[in-house]
């Protein structure tokens, strides 16, 4: 077993995959915490699918599809944030529309692009085993950007997540902060797309943070713990998929999903035994 692990670590792709998992988990834990507490899970899903339009555009123009995804997801995040705040349009309707238009745009643009598109599926389902070393540096930069922004705007981001009305009354630039958060979600989505694919992005944004949220009652602790859970699921899932010869993205997600169910049942058992042990109040 150890020999097999050491042997696998000889491969650059495996080392890069493991490092990618660790780097992505940082952004995942920090931004996932906001996604969970601010209840913008489906906004993130919408941004992820809109990003597919950018991938299509990248193919069509002969540019790096990831670049297209960055542009599209940022535009989708900022655009949706702005429209939602200004018109009061029901958020879930807006998300649904964006989700579908993004995907459809991507499909049409890919149709119109000439040539062979073998790696198209990798954006949908992830390709953590095909991350080049140059991309690792990009991920480090993105991590620094994301964690740095959250540190700089922490008290404002906490305030708009906890109580938007009070933040407004205190003259916090609520709209601008919301857009900053949307931008950070969009960047995280693009990073995650590499690992699990845009279809499964929602899972890695929410599951580690949701488990952490059951264990700690402080936002910073929740971010750190969520990053830790992310790292565990990424690493364990990657090895599992390597040895069992399964799709890595889906294996990681299933492992995380299993972890979520375990945390759910542990909590259920916890409250149940507490209820049984607490004498009824008179």
């Amino acid at each position, binding site marked *: 077993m150890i020999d097999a692990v050491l042997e696998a670590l000889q491969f650059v792709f495996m080392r890069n995959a493991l490092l990618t998992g660790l780097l992505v988990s940082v952004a995942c834990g920090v931004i996932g915490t906001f996604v969970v507490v601010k209840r913008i899970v489906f906004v993130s899903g919408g941004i992820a699918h809109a990003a597919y339009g950018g991938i299509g555009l990248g193919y069509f123009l002969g540019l790096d599809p990831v670049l297209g995804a960055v542009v599209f997801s940022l535009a989708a995040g900022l655009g949706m944030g702005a429209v939602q705040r200004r018109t009061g349009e029901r958020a879930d309707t807006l998300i649904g529309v964006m989700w579908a238009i993004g995907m459809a745009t991507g499909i049409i643009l890919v149709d119109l692009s000439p040539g062979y598109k073998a790696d198209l599926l990798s954006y949908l389902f992830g390709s953590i085993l095909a991350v080049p070393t140059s991309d690792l540096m990009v991920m480090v930069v993105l991590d620094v950007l994301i964690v740095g922004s959250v540190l700089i705007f922490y008290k404002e981001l906490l305030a708009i997540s*906890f109580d938007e*009305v009070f933040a407004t*009354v205190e*003259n916090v630039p609520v709209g601008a902060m919301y857009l900053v958060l949307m931008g950070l979600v969009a960047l995280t989505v693009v990073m995650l797309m590499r690992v699990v694919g845009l279809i499964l992005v929602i899972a890695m944004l929410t599951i580690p943070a949701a488990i952490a949220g059951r264990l700690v009652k402080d*936002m910073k602790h929740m971010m750190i713990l969520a990053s830790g859970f992310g790292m565990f699921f990424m690493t364990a899932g990657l090895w599992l998929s390597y040895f069992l010869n399964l799709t890595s993205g889906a294996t990681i997600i299933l492992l995380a999903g299993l972890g979520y169910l375990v945390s759910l049942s542990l909590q259920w058992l916890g409250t149940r035994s507490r209820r049984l042990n607490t004498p009824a109040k008179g």
Partner: protein
Amino acid sequence: MADEARKMGSREVIAVRHLWAGYDGEMVLQDVNLSVQELDFIGIVGPNGGGKTTLLKVLLGLIHPTRGQVRIMGRPIEEGRRHVGYVPQLTEFDSDFPINVWDVACMGRLGDRGLLHRYTKEDEGIVATALEQVDMLDQRHRPFGDLSGGQRQRVYVARALATEPAVLLLDEPLASVDPRVSSNIYDLLKRLNDKVTIVMVSHDVGAISSHVKTVGCLNRRLFYHGGDALTQEMLELAYQCPIDLIAHGVPHRVFPDHAAHGGDK
């Protein structure tokens, strides 16, 4: 009552003149006039849909008046609202939110500590004093979601106090707490009222009229005379329905109380 009236300063904290406001052309507030004097404790009652929430939103600068003028400490709302300590209703909170008592109270310092600035030692001192005033300082490390309704309400009051407000604005502060807790909160507000003006809206006519200094009735129009008695006439004008309908549950506190006040004068 006379010495309480004397304690009130003559400075006007909130001035509302001929205010019209509403949504989509429907005017929920019609020609509302209100002058809140320093150290007053005003209770504004009225039926649901009568415009209490809309009035609060205007005072907080969340919706703009269609017509009329609102000034807080003599300034336009966006500037003046930094002197307002807002205490929201309890109901709008997700009890899973990962935050402790201290961090909630710290949000009161956001207005003075702008973007890119950390909270200072001075801020921490102000927050500690605010929590001390509501008797929650020893609970500062507890998760906010684990607190009882009354405790949460007190932390919201501390957060509002941490803004160093000239006026506290409370939205149905006692809506979802039990009577014993609500009388504690009234005691707290009464103590705070020595230093800060209080404006409070509520649908609970009985409770509010027995604790505040002056009372007004709001149902699209505001019936306010700067007195402490809620007259039958005001209620009838405001509610436009027989009084016994709105006095359900606490008839003894509304009517004999006011009969007694009438006798005093």
